[in-house]
């Protein structure tokens, strides 16, 4: 018997290995046995590995989520930057439009001068000829603009229309050396003439009698005697007043009230009613300078 057992030791051991769990299964059924010492040791051995794996997976998942989150934030950031730029441009455009609107409103509220319709025009160009201080406006014959019409802004006189085409016109600026107009010292009502000097920041005051009262900073307005400009339009302020010992007239300059370097919108006025049938007493010099030089 012992020899038989020794001879079939392996199959018998295998049979035991097979039968033991089967008997346990049949004996306990669905009942779960309590963990013994070996179970506890084995379960304890797997715990660190499981914890390590969970920590590794959680760490990787967290890193991935943070990466994805960062990418999303970066995308959002880029989009928001673009949006901010677009909004800034829009706000800038709106500010520009608001300023333009304000300027146009002021032009439309210009005091009643002249008799005909007013034409609001935009300055679209400046003469490329440095010797002729003119600007180009986007209104012409089709809009009722005619030659010699006065051009103003809310700050004062700009000049007069020199040449007109169908859709545009050239405006001779006051500061052009060929410009002349009749003026009056606002405080004393003394009459004089003003002429351009070729410098866009300076006018020359002519024909003011030496006996007249003129002080630095005195406002000078149009007199309306030239038949071009309506009376009362601001021209500039007196500066460099010189009373010489001899001669009929005193020497003085005017600081133009209009900044000619920043012209954007202008108002083209109709000539004074009186000029319609009368020859201008101070004829615009522009009529004498037609044609290319």
């Amino acid at each position, binding site marked *: 018997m012992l020899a038989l057992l020794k001879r079939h030791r392996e199959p018998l051991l295998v049979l035991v290995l097979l039968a033991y769990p089967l008997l346990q*299964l049949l004996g306990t059924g669905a009942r779960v046995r309590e963990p013994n010492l070996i179970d506890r040791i084995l379960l304890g051995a797997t715990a660190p590995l499981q914890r390590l794996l969970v920590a590794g997976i959680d760490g990787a998942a967290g890193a991935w989520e943070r990466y994805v989150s960062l990418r999303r934030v970066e995308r959002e950031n880029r989009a928001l930057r673009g949006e901010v730029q677009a909004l800034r441009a829009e706000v800038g455009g709106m500010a520009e439009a608001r300023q333009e609107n304000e300027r146009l409103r002021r032009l439309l509220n210009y005091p009643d001068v002249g008799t005909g319709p007013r034409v609001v025009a935009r300055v679209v160009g400046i003469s490329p000829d440095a010797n002729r201080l003119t600007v180009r406006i986007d209104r012409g014959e089709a809009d009722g603009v005619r030659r010699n019409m006065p051009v103003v802004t809310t700050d004062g006189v700009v000049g007069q229309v020199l040449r007109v085409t169908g859709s545009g016109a050239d405006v001779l600026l006051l500061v052009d050396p060929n410009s002349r107009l009749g003026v009056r010292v606002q405080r004393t009502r003394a009459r004089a003439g003003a002429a351009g000097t070729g410098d866009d920041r300076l006018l020359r005051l002519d024909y003011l009698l030496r006996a007249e009262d003129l002080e630095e900073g005195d406002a000078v307005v149009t007199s309306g005697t030239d038949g071009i400009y309506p009376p009362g339009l601001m021209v500039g302020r007196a500066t460099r007043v010189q009373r010489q010992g001899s001669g009929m007239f005193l020497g003085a300059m005017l600081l133009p009230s209009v900044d000619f370097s920043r012209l954007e919108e202008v108002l083209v006025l109709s000539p004074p009613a009186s000029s319609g049938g009368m020859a201008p007493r101070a004829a615009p010099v522009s009529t004498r300078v037609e044609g290319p030089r």
Partner: protein
Amino acid sequence: MTRVALAAALALALLAVESVLVKYLGLTLARIDVTVAIVAFLALRSGLLEGACGSFAVGYLLDLMSGRPTGLYTFLAVLTFLLGRIGASLVEVRGAAGFALFAMAADAVHGLLALGVTWLTSKTWGMGALSPAGLPLEVLLTGTAAFCLYPLLQKFGPVAERPEPGLIGLPR
């Protein structure tokens, strides 16, 4: 018995990994029977007693890790090992792909046996816990795992013929 200890250690590590993976992947119906892959390898490469002991250890661990240590998986592991030995004597298994197919067959048998034995031994157990619905996917996953594990399992020892002839160790 080194191979038994190695098989048990590997099974323990793989079961720990699987338990974590299942936690994240949520394979509630289909599991990866890594232990069956080890049992299949033992059926192919180890002797009767060594393989039976290894299968017993692996089945014991599976029972333990399943949370319901009733002895079912221990019994099934040894039984699958013995059936695997019979199967291995009928077919020639070579390479990772062949091993994967062999492990898949072993897993199918293991799964069906689990269902059958469970049904026989307990009328109170819900069949839902061992529903055959997930078996095809389980077999497929186990085959994939076996294919991946094959290089590692080969390191258990030199690929050699079984030390003793016969299906259950009896001399021919």
